[in-house]
């Protein structure tokens, strides 16, 4: 398979200062193997755009222990005490975006759309400094598209072309994130022959995927053992 790379080659695709879009909701649909590589690297000044930063010491939470993050942009960091601490200590910038706005902004980033007017967050602190506009008598705020240097997604299976399917709610942000990075890397549990995925079941067509890395963790009892 042409797009398949070894996980040890993944770091070559990441530069200091990059903005990474990372799929996942909590630890579900999260590229745990790629995050491990990042956590073990000397990369720095990274910005991560993801719904949250995993849990303490798990998933994206591992990156808080190594100091490679400059900024996190997402919807919910409160439950990760390491994130709150890093922010309190001035070691991590945080930009809060409502969950639906985050998903939509990333989708726009991959869709040739520069920005959109959403009804979410009108009249709140999140809307401060953002342009308001009325359409048909309703007020909306302008949100800008989000793009990344590199997108990291986690799929259940890739076929040898790079078509992706996801595991249940593990789909979450992965579909849009796969469209919005200059380089897109998919971590997968399994690689199947082209033709084994049904045209109707493919969620991410192969055109979006540049590289595929095999997950180093095995799922047992519904969890990735040792992750």
């Amino acid at each position, binding site marked *: 398979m042409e797009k398949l790379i070894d996980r040890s080659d993944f770091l070559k695709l990441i530069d200091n200062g990059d903005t990474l879009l990372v799929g996942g*909701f*909590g*630890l*579900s*649909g999260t590229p745990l193997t790629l995050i491990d590589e990042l956590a073990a690297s000397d990369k720095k000044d990274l910005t991560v755009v993801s*719904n949250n930063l995993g849990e303490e010491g798990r998933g994206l939470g591992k990156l808080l222990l190594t100091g490679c993050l400059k900024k996190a942009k997402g*919807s*919910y*960091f*409160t*439950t990760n005490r390491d*994130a*709150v601490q890093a*922010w*309190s200590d001035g070691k991590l910038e*945080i930009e*809060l*975006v*409502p*969950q*639906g*706005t*985050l*998903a*939509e902004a*990333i*989708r726009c980033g991959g869709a040739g759309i520069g920005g959109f007017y*959403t*009804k*979410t*967050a*009108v*009249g*709140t*602190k*999140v809307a401060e400094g953002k342009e308001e506009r009325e359409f048909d008598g309703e*007020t909306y705020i302008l949100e800008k598209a989000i793009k990344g240097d590199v997108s990291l997604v986690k799929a*259940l299976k890739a076929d040898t072309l790079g078509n992706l399917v*996801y*595991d*249940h*709610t*593990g*789909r*979450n*942000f*992965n*579909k*849009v994130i796969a469209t919005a990075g200059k380089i897109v890397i998919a971590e997968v549990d399994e690689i199947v022959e082209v033709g084994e995925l049904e045209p109707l079941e493919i*969620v991410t067509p192969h055109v979006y995927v540049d590289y595929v890395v095999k997950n180093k963790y095995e*799922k047992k*009892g*519904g*969890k*990735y053992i040792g992750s």
Partner: protein
Amino acid sequence: MGLERIKIAKRVAEELSDGEVINLGVGIPTLIPDYLGDKKVYLQSENGLLGMGPTPDDEDINMDLISASKKPITMDTGASLFDSSDSFVMIRGGHVDLAVMGALQIDQYGEIANWAVPGKTILGVGGAMDLVAGAKRIIIASRHLAKDSSPKLVKELTFPSSGVRKADMLVTEHAVFKFTDNGTELIEILSDMSVEELRKITGADFTYGDE
């Protein structure tokens, strides 16, 4: 304490109609499915599922089949899966019949504050503002008083607003309130309090009956 949460959940459950699509927030709202009786509703989970079923047995847990509270779930018959952007098309686009959520404060017109506390770290908003903006109907399910014994229903919010869209109803362990452009209306007392006693522990004025 637990009993009062259940009381609130039970009362909110009465507001649900057969066939509705409902999003349940964290905390008290998650207790509601246990008190639906014969009513069949469809639970939407903002991480990408319509038709959320009960908690699975241990051997059926899959960390990639979870609720918005990141708890393992199952799928009801007729469930469908979608990505986060489509999930918020459903929420923000006005397709969810009802959102039941908690609140830190509610003002007399039903404006909700449920994501941030003044002077404290504000590092989470999740899908709260999208639900506030988009759900067809909003019921706040909350204890009557905050942990510091201050009333949650207030004249004016002192906590940051979750959006200009107002809640329709507030259910606490003591009472059910309805919100209109004219303010708060008490529509039912759920405890042994008198209306006057209720006024004392409520931060907003409210009307009751013909008064």
